[in-house]
């Protein structure tokens, strides 16, 4: 199997091989064959009488020591994955909420409100009275409302209840899956899955759905608060891939997730260009992004994304990366090992996320700019220790047009029809110019040739006139392969889709069409796409489970992806996953997730590793919904 379809990644993998540097692909190989009980979800480690394993071939034990069945064990393991994903997304949101609270009290002066309109829009949606409040006060109120979402209360999560369709609210109430506290429901999953508690697989799965809806709320909150503090993304053009690293500049990669850190580094860097030049770097400071914090600073500042997900180690192999600054999530501990062979400094910044072998500079929101300057100076200092013999920058970049927040998309549609912005989108869906909509999300996964799932699915669906949206490392893959361009729209879009992308592009004053795929942000930003779908559903007076909208994570890796997939199913969407999740050991759980859940929520999982077959299934799902709507 090819390791990656990305030319720059492949070039760097040759360097790795030549220099004997171990990467994620080698380590994955060394893990083969992987444990079959783990792969099927049939290992239970939740008490000290275990670990227990169920024989998937039916010869050995059919229950764990406590009597838990295969389905019970699989459901419990899955629910805990959802809880971990929820804790991660909402931890990110909570970090933003605390930053905002401190800012409102004057304790974090480097975080002023960047987008007043968004602040007022979010406050209004939450029912917080505006009545002539100062920005600072309102900011404090929204932060307090956000933090209240994590605590015990008796009302549904506001960030979920105020952002979904009325029909969804009724469905969630009907099945008892309305979360009232984000931290509370994460704890509830841990409780119900502990020794001798919930043994009913369906009840456990519904508990997982409830937790996933808290994940949705946390993600929506994260996007809202980041937009308030750092601005709502607007269309922006950048180059993407490892070729954005510069031989004559101090290169700093921003890796991880939260703009609380990365956005401030971007702000401060513009003031420190001279310092970098004084150290001998004629090109000054060159910031690049990796993974989703890369998406955050791409969307808001046009910072070029260098690489994503499984190829993160390869940025170091260019020999010109002076520092990699990380916060949390998706940061491989191996970075510190790879960096040992180079001058690159790995800088950890968060108290909950340290890596042996990395330099830790604790980032303090109260002194954000000072922390950012300290980190940048570490990079400038490392620049002087670069080994020219190890410099090897792959000569490969692509153009990427990003910045498609829901506000940007609705704004673009308003350029076509000012009075009724959603009308052009709906009309084109009805006419069949747009067959449906697919949101691509999720990671790369070392099991899959990097980007192959994303590329095949996008090309197949575009040909069928499916409007494509993307977030996270999926959007990153499209950026690196030049699919976030109007050229790609010309090359791959079916005639109906090409016409719509072209017309909207013209209306917003682009010389050409909108890009083939609209980059909506980082992985925490998936609710931007949900917002557009909810607006369309509300306008049509139908619920989300009727819309010809699907989602796909062809190369999913993280527990966060499992949480996202689960709320997307609960939202009513058919959700494709290209990597088999550890559930097949539970026959009933598998059937519920792929079939029976449809009767409850309208959405369901499509597990299909072959991207061409997956594209067919997604098109079928879209067509089924179209005929349900009579279009």
């Amino acid at each position, binding site marked *: 199997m090819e390791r990656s379809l990305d030319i720059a990644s492949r070039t760097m993998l040759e360097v790795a091989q030549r220099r004997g540097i171990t990467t994620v692909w080698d380590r994955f190989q060394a893990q083969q*064959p992987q*444990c079959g009980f783990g792969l*099927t979800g049939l290992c239970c480690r939740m008490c000290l009488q275990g670990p227990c394993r169920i024989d998937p071939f039916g010869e050995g034990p059919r229950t764990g020591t406590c009597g838990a069945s295969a389905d019970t064990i699989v459901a419990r393991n899955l629910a805990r994955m959802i809880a971990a994903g929820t804790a991660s997304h909402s931890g990110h949101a909570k970090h933003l909420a605390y930053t905002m609270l401190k800012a409102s009290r004057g304790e974090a002066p480097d975080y002023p409100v960047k987008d007043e309109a968004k602040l007022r829009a979010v406050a209004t949606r939450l029912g917080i009275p505006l009545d002539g409040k100062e920005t600072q006060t309102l900011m404090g109120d929204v932060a307090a409302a956000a933090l209240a979402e994590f605590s015990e209360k008796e009302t549904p999560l506001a960030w979920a209840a105020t952002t979904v369709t009325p029909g969804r609210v009724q469905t969630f109430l009907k099945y008892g899956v309305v979360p009232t506290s984000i931290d509370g429901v994460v704890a509830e999953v841990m409780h119900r899955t502990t020794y001798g508690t919930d043994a009913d697989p369906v009840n456990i799965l519904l508990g997982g759905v409830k937790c996933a809806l808290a994940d949705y709320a946390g993600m929506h909150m994260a996007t809202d608060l980041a937009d308030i503090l750092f601005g709502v993304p607007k269309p922006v053009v950048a180059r993407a891939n490892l070729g954005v690293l510069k031989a004559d500049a101090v290169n700093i990669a921003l890796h991880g997730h939260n703009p609380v850190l990365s956005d401030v580094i971007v702000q401060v860097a513009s003031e420190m260009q001279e310092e970098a030049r004084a150290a001998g770097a004629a090109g000054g400071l060159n910031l690049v992004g990796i993974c989703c914090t890369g998406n955050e600073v791409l969307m808001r500042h046009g910072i070029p994304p260098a690489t994503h997900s499984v190829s993160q180690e390869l940025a170091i192999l260019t020999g010109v990366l002076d520092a990699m600054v990380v916060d949390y999530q998706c940061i491989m501990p191996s970075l510190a090992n790879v960096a040992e062979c180079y001058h690159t400094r790995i800088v950890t910044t968060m108290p909950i996320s340290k890596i042996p072998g990395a330099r830790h500079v604790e980032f303090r929101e109260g002194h954000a700019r000072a922390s950012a300057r300290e980190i940048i100076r570490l990079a400038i200092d490392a620049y002087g220790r670069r080994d020219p013999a190890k410099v090897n920058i792959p000569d490969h970049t692509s153009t990427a047009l990003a910045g498609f927040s829901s506000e940007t998309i609705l704004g673009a549609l308003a350029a076509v029809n000012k009075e009724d912005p959603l009308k052009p989108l709906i009309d084109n869906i009805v006419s069949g110019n747009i067959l449906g909509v697919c949101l691509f999300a999720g990671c790369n996964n070392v099991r899959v040739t990097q980007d192959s799932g994303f590329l095949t699915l996008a090309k197949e669906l575009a040909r069928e006139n499916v409007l494509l949206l993307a977030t996270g490392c999926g959007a990153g893959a499209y950026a690196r392969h030049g699919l976030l361009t109007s050229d790609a729209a010309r090359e791959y879009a079916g005639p109906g889709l090409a016409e719509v992308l072209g017309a909207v592009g013209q209306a917003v004053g682009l010389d050409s069409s909108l890009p083939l795929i609209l980059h909506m942000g980082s992985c925490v930003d998936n609710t931007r796409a949900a917002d557009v779908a909810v607006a369309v559903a509300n306008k049509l007076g139908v619920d989300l489970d009727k819309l010809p909208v699907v989602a796909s994570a062809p190369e999913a890796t993280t527990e966060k992806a499992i949480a996202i997939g689960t709320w997307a199913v609960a939202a009513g969407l058919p959700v494709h996953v290209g990597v088999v999740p550890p559930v097949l050991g539970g026959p009933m759980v598998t059937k519920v997730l792929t079939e029976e859940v449809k009767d409850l929520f309208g959405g369901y999982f499509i597990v299909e590793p072959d991207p061409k077959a997956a594209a067919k299934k997604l098109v079928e799902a879209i067509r089924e919904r179209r005929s349900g709507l009579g279009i």
Partner: protein
Amino acid sequence: MKHIFVRLDRCTGCRECELACAVEHSASKELLTAIFETPPPRKRLYVESGDGRSVPILCRHCDDAPCLAACLSGAIYRDRAREGVVVQRADKCIGCWTCIMVCPYGVIGRRLDGGRWVAAKCDRCPDRAIPACVEACPTKALVYAEPEEWARMARRTVATTLAGQEG
């Protein structure tokens, strides 16, 4: 002829060898599809618990094989083309279970073949250079080696220990 030897101190009882064996004897040879096959594929080695330790028990492909001697229908035979491994033809098995009765290791089981129960024994993975169980073992507790090679390994371990004690 190579045999599968067990480094008893290394077995953690994970049962990966058992799973790999069943998968190797499935139609699809892929875990995630094999678990849905009917009849379910059957393993031919067993991790047992003895004296508080995990012990993989495998067919020894004995030179004087009791199962072969006891098989009245001629289903069990020695495959000369494959260094004399003791294997079985399902179509000749009459399901008398005499082989199960006489195997001192208890490593012959039963499986469904075309709606009929037949004996299931280790075939040393005819499609593989290294048996599936050996390849699957994450701690390398299973060693596929010539008996002389195994014995030499054991001698070297002892030699190192003795030399160490001498100081």
